[in-house]
């Protein structure tokens, strides 16, 4: 058995030895050139003149390209062709590429890129949500999902609350910055890119070079972190490299310096959520109206599906009997916000978690009681606001079990006692659940392919359409292949994702990697195994059902031979030992304009309890203890799943606490380096961190009944935010109404406001 086992990451030894090769680590031929973009210093302007003479004259510069030098499409957008590789005359945010420097070294390119003399004809720049709202700057009309009669239900509700919450964006801060290189290949082009979406890189490069897709091959062995930030944001570098490599017929490499990376690339969408809710005296919801204001940035990128997913998670784990969710997609002169782990889902969940926290305050109840009163029923037929029946909910049992194992009730009482006796430090605790929908909401993306070879020596070569960004996808898919053949995982060679091996792939995104590629791999392996069985049955003259594969051996009736021996025999008998596999997710259909259907095959569930302490003199705060119970179905690899849960939680907590993006009023990002943008560090992890996996199969026929795990744990970090809100609430009687991120400053300010000392 190679599944359901805590096998280390396939590259673990290579990681710790420094031999795992990332895009920038590849040795290139000596004539390789290095690229850097010249960036706009203005948030919104027409380019009056761009004087590049000093750039061209700088040491080491080989060529400088502008939009006029691009032979075919000047576009790197993943959606509606609204994102130029190089500006053709106007700029829309600080950091937009205007020109491309080709130089002998990375440093020479960076130095030269700063020497341009650009004259801008400034236009009004929209930086904030309010800026965009004031002038009605949007991408399209508002969207609405609607179920029941929320307005009437709101009016007739026994009690009502209303309010708003600001939810900041988030920088991905993948440790490996964006990088790509391109190699000219007899008129064709080979691109290596640190990307979650090799096929899209292939398409954008082909369009930029005027080539058919079959002339472009894209390879990705691994990324040093992605988190959604490499779903579309690598397009610009790959296309730039390809254009230069094609024009100069020299290898071309580009990587962003960290500050450039943070200034150029998109981030998690910032949201403002306005809410009104009606409820009874037990806190049970009777009506909810949400309005989402989504800061998309200057270009569309993936903002529509991100904002859609926020709407699709406006209910989180709760039944909303009468609901309206309206979403406004705002266009601003800032980085074009993009995919980021959870893809809008976490922001949507923040809305309903805020509502329930607010209701609990209004009723003077423990927020957990209010949350439990509203969870989707187990085995029920309750519908989401988008008319999908939630039939697989385990939230009620899961929350109860976690409350018990974390000793929630007793600790809540102890915290109240502690706070009564502690004038400066205050503690808080909160339990929040997660229900995360699994499948791409763009239905056609829910497909995957795999290519498996068994060589005549019995070694297995595995390839599939997913990309490895650290999540352990390759390890899990190799476990599947090993399981089908009854081999150890070490017998399966994992190979780089390659558009020449598996075509027409989807991005490795939406937590779908293992679900899709694992199934495709299984199909390919089973095709080969079936051929081997058929061959062996005939060759040894036994019934097919007497043949089994286990621990590297194959039992054929009473004969036992090694897998290697069987492969050699099969080859001699001219049996095809290579196969492709394909998978498409069943049962899903979705009409996004109507807001109706079944966009998800299933939901992943989880819950977290966080306990925090705050200093009411400074706002300093810490997570003291975390307990998580999370549903990964029948885990393919408990260690890797646990890693996703722990890492997702900490990343989610960072988003809502210390990670603060700050722009000045001219649209320059001030938090553009790790010195000014703080992600959690080692000591920020909770001192006590209990993580348990829910024991149960996926109800759906997923790969060995496992569940997706990439994104679902991320919103567990919401429990930290709600615990901070709980801690602050001991400062006074009013509702805290905390905004995110809850930095020390926001916490201090909120506490002082409750104490009647607003500043």
């Amino acid at each position, binding site marked *: 058995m190679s599944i359901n086992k805590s096998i280390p990451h396939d590259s673990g030894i290579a990681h*710790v030895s420094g031999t795992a090769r990332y895009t920038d680590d590849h*040795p290139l031929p000596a004539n390789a050139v290095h690229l850097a973009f010249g960036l706009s210093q203005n948030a919104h302007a027409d380019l009056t003149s761009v004087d590049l003479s000093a750039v061209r004259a700088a040491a080491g510069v080989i060529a400088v390209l502008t939009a006029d030098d691009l032979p075919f499409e000047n576009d790197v957008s993943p959606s509606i062709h609204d994102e130029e590789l190089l500006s053709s005359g106007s700029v829309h945010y600080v950091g937009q590429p205007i020109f491309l420097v080709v130089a002998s070294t990375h*440093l020479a390119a960076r130095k030269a890129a700063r020497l341009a003399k650009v004259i801008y004809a400034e236009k009004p720049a929209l930086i904030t949500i309010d800026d965009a709202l004031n002038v009605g700057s949007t991408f399209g009309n508002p969207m609405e999902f609607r179920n029941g009669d929320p307005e009437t239900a709101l009016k007739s509700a026994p009690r009502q609350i209303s309010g708003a919450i600001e939810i900041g964006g988030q920088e991905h801060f993948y440790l490996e910055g964006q990088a790509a290189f391109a190699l000219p290949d007899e008129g064709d082009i080979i691109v290596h890119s640190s990307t979650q979406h090799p096929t899209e890189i292939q398409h954008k490069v082909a369009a930029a070079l005027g080539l058919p897709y079959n002339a472009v091959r894209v390879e990705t062995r691994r990324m040093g972190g992605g988190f959604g930030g490499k779903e579309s944001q690598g397009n610009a570098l790959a296309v730039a490299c390809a254009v230069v490599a094609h024009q100069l017929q020299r290898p071309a490499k580009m990587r962003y310096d960290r500050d450039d990376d943070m200034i150029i690339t998109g981030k998690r969408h910032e949201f403002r959520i306005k809410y009104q809710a009606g409820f009874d005296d037990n806190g049970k919801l009777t009506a909810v109206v949400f309005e989402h204001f989504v800061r998309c940035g200057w270009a569309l990128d993936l903002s529509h599906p991100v904002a859609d997913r926020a709407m699709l998670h406006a209910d989180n784990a709760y039944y909303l009997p009468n609901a309206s969710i309206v979403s406004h997609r705002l266009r601003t002169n800032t980085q074009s916000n993009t995919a980021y782990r959870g893809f809008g889902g976490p922001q949507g969940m923040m809305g309903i978690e805020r509502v329930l926290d607010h209701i609990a305050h209004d009723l003077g109840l423990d927020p957990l009681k209010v949350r439990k009163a509203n969870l989707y029923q187990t085995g029920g037929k309750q519908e989401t606001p988008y008319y999908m029946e939630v039939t697989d909910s385990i939230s009620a049992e899961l929350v109860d079990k976690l409350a018990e194992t974390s000793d929630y009730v007793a600790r809540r009482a102890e915290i109240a006692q502690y706070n009564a006796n502690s*004038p400066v430090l205050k503690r808080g605790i909160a339990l929040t659940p997660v229900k995360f929908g699994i499948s791409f909401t763009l239905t056609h993306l829910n497909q995957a392919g795999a290519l498996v070879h068994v060589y005549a020596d019995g070694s297995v070569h595995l390839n599939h359409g997913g990309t490895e960004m650290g999540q352990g996808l390759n390890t899990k898919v190799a476990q599947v292949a090993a399981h089908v053949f009854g081999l150890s995982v070490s017998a399966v060679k994992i190979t780089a994702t390659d558009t020449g091996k598996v075509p027409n792939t989807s991005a490795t995104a939406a937590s779908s990697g293992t679900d899709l590629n694992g199934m495709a791999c299984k199909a390919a392996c089973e095709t080969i195994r079936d051929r081997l069985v058929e061959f062996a049955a005939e060759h040894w003259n036994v019934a097919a059902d007497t043949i089994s594969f286990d621990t590297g051996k194959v039992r054929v009736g009473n004969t036992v031979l090694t897998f290697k021996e069987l492969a050699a025999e099969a080859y001699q008998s001219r049996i095809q030992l290579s196969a492709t596999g394909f998978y498409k997710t069943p049962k899903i259909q979705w009409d996004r304009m109507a807001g109706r259907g079944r966009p998800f095959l299933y939901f992943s569930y989880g819950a977290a309890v966080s306990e925090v302490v705050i200093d009411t003199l400074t706002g300093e705060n810490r997570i003291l203890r975390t307990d998580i119970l999370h549903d990964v179905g029948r885990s393919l690899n408990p260690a890797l799943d646990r*890693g996703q849960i722990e890492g997702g939680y*900490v990343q989610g907590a960072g988003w809502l606490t210390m990670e603060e993006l700050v722009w000045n009023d001219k649209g320059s990002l001030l938090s553009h380096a790790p010195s000014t943008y703080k992600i*959690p560090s080692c*000591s920020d992890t909770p001192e006590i961190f209990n993580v348990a996996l829910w024991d149960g199969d996926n109800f759906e026929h997923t790969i060995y009944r496992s569940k997706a795990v990439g994104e679902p744990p991320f919103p567990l970090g919401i429990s930290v935010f709600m615990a901070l809100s709980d801690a602050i609430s001991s400062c006074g009687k009013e509702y805290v109404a905390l905004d995110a991120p809850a930095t020390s400053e926001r916490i201090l300010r909120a506490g002082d406001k409750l104490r009647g000392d607003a500043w």
Partner: protein
Amino acid sequence: MGDIRFLLNGQPMVLENPDPTLTVLDWLREAKHLTGTKEGCNEGDCGACSVSLAAMEDGRLVHRAVNSCILFLPHLHGKSLTTVEGISPNGKLHPVQQAMVEHHGSQCGFCTPGIVMSLYAAHREGRQDHNDVLAGNLCRCTGYVPIQRAAEAAAKQPQPEFFDEAAALQNLTLTNDAIDGAYLPTDLDDFANWYVKNPNATLIAGATEVGLEVTKALKDLTNLAFLNRLDALKTIANDDNGIRIGAGVTLSQLRSAMVGKHTDFVEMLRRFGSVQVRNTGTIGGNIANGSPIADSPPALIAMGASITLRRGDKQREILLEDFYLSYGVQDRQPGEFVESLFIPNQPDTVGIYKISKRFDQDISAVCGGFSITIENDKITNSIIAFGGMAATSKRAKTVEAALNGQPWSEATIKAAMQKFADDFTPLSDVRGTADYRLKIVQNLLWRYWLARNGTSANVLAEVAK
């Protein structure tokens, strides 16, 4: 004109006149094709480029993790550099590597070589303070938990056999004290005279600040002097009146020297930068740089510290607070340098507070200290100084005046808290608004009052059940 000699993973290296501002990281990756060491931020904040640098300190070989992205080749002169490629001789994983694999400590793997090297240096030194050891290594995937488990497991494993690094270092014969474009002095008098003649030279100690001039501001620096070989600047001497610390003492060494003397100062130094930054950054650099957000000057001012400035063979001693004249301007003559720092003896009642968005490795929103002398329940003297509140590290003299001569009472403290607005008009920036800064310095006086009365409150001291 000269060369740089050092050990790279045990092998002697001789580099003839290398570019003196070529970073160790770029040299490793581009010249040596040792790509295990990664560039994550190129400014010393993420630790992906961490390597181990070993040298003799007080007769003992000491291994220290450093950020290779902001370290220049001349820094290596006479030292032993170890990268991730060099810690598993004979192909057997080092205990920290083995533990990282077994505890699933890597996901994307990009931060991993740096984590491994920080843990390696700590393992060589027998350190168990894993969270501090790793404060300068960011990981975005794991949430650190498996890395902490790996660190704990590895710490229990014995040192593997290594080659005799100390002997190999002794075999390095260093003859020259200069390469093209950079002076690498070993004699303080020689350097002092040279600097009088080269007053516009850029002095480089740990390069934790100057490094960014090269990697981020993309400046071409010329006429450099590397101070890290001046042993005379690395002395620490206790006398009856206090402790004198050479300007070339690193912040790591300073912290060790201050243990048992000033609890809060040592705690502040624990959170100053990261292990990697403290291992190269010097106290002289932090003082002389004159940054209004430097952490050590306000604390040292509160402690009544003075500095000795030297020009040629002339020395003068001034109070540290008098060194800072205005933004970017210090009381330092051309050709003059900070030679040493003196911290007078005093009771351990100085309260030093560092407030930042993140506890570890973060530039403070405000940092400073309170030194209040109480005799017979009356305040006889007070020094209050903060960084992050003005164009320089600055004393809050109006607040001090409101305290001095007053009874040590809640009423005095509450009244004095209101006076900070008369002393400081802070700015708003990415680390906090002006209102926030003013509010917390006021509240920190209250925190100090509570602490002096035995009711200190600190979230870092809180323990979960």
